[in-house]
């Protein structure tokens, strides 16, 4: 009798194991069938009309030295340079609620992407030098505001080089080397 009970229990356990395995494997295959919910960001992108794309811009605030994310939209374009331009123009615009660390009157003259180095070159007008307030922290704020935002949103851009009125400048305000391109430093970003 005892042996019979044991066999029964083993059989029940085996059936339970097989059932669990089937349920587990079934749940793993669900994404292939397209029934699982898409990520939130993908949903947002899908919700946009095809002529718009979503980007995440990061801004400083008076309270924090770390930039906070804000969702923005750009007009979609097959030409990547158009997207870069729109995004930089949007970043340096005067904002009511967000702190963009850029000198007044700053304007992007032109830009180009160097494919071999994965480097975006941004050429700003001379207000970047003439209106710059000075200070190491201000220089770092400007540089990484631009570089981090671009590199975060456009994966193909690995570094950013700055020109002012078509020329290289050794520094912005006497501190940080401004001739070499900058890699992003995402410690300035708060990525939720």
């Amino acid at each position: 009798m005892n042996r019979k009970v044991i066999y029964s229990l083993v059989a029940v356990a085996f059936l339970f194991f097989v059932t669990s395995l089937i349920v587990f494997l079934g749940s793993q295959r669900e994404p292939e069938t397209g029934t699982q919910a898409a990520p939130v960001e993908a949903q947002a992108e899908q919700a946009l009309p095809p002529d718009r794309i979503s980007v995440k811009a990061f801004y400083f605030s008076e309270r924090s030295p770390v930039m906070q994310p804000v969702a923005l939209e750009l007009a979609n374009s097959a030409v990547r340079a158009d997207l870069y331009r729109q995004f930089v123009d949007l970043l340096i615009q005067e904002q009511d609620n967000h702190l963009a660390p850029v000198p007044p009157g700053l304007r992007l003259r032109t830009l180009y992407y160097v494919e071999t180095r994965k480097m975006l070159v941004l050429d700003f007008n001379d207000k970047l030098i003439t209106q710059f307030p000075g200070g190491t922290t201000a220089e770092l704020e400007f540089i990484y505001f631009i570089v981090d935002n671009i590199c975060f949103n456009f994966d193909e851009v690995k570094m950013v080089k700055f020109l002012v009125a078509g020329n290289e400048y050794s520094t912005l305000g006497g501190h940080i080397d401004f001739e070499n391109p900058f890699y992003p430093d995402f410690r300035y970003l708060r990525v939720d």
Partner: protein
Amino acid sequence: MTAAKRHRPALLACFFLLPLSLLSLSVSVRTADHPGYSRIVFEGSRGFQFRLQESGRRLEFHLDRRAEVSTGDLDRPRSSLIERVAHENGETGSVFSVTFNTDVKVKRHFVLERPFRVVFDLMPVPGPNQEPTPSAGPDPQEPDLPPADGPGPDAEEPRRPTKDRSKVIETICLDPGHGGSDLGAVGAGDLREKDITLTVAKRLKRIIESRLGLRVLMTREKDAEVSLNSRVSIANNQKADLFVSIHVNSSFRRGARGPETFFVSLKATDQAAYELAQKENESFEEIDRMAPTDDLKMILWNMAQTQYIRESSKLAEYIQNELNVLLNTINRGVKQAPFRVLMRAAMPAVLVEIAFVSNPSEATRLKSEAFLDAAAQSIYDGIAKFIFYQNSRYR
């Protein structure tokens, strides 16, 4: 035979006088300030017995024989604690009297050989209502080592030739940021960075010279425009052992506050230069192989600072800690950034941002003479601690 007869008196004189000259004693006196203590050294041409007598502001150093005083600091003591040093020969011995401008106590003394030296380390005794000054008080970093373990700069002079002399700090280059038409950051009430940096640098120079007796260079001594390349060239050409660039900060955020001390980050430029070298020299295996080495970095003079990153980091840490105390700020640690003026410095180099001129409350403090004095003192304390750390590593 005739010549020998002619020189006989001279030979006899040499025979008798030489032993006498070997028996005579010549003593030189050296004095100096070090972080946390002052030092006085009596160096003899040969050994002697001595006895010490202390009384408040006076210390008498009795020798068991007459002595001649040779070169040294007898006339012009280089320690801020010492007022004067006098010497007097008696019938059977001699005495050096050291007069101090404050009450002192002998922290320790020890004897060293080859050459024979008696070394005294002295500390001022604070009065009942007097706080010990940071320069005069004991250095918390300093271990109370027995003499044989290397009590300080003088103690191990004989070992110097076997040491890496480039690591011993003798010259400090101070770089007051901006100047001339380059105003630097400007705060409310026409508060200009270039003026503040020059004031603090001049005060810091005075403190270092008087307390440490080191040579101090300035990249500018007046309101003049000096290029960033020239600033670092001055330090490199004069073989400075430390480079301290003094600045005042500014931010787009008016709330930004607190001191910041930076040392150079070569990561971005290193990586960019290396990638560029790789792209441009892909077919030249030899150059590609050399690219990451220090030799090539030194050829690319932009990266001279590479060799000193660790020391620069330590120096920045010491200065930042002192400035945190001054401004009562939490320690945010030291930071790295690709500073133009630091990249080509062939020595430990830091950039100090004392406070934010863009912050209204810090701008008010930057207008105060007392605050600027305190800032200079804090930077000095950081430098002094670094020197002690550095000397203890390499001496």
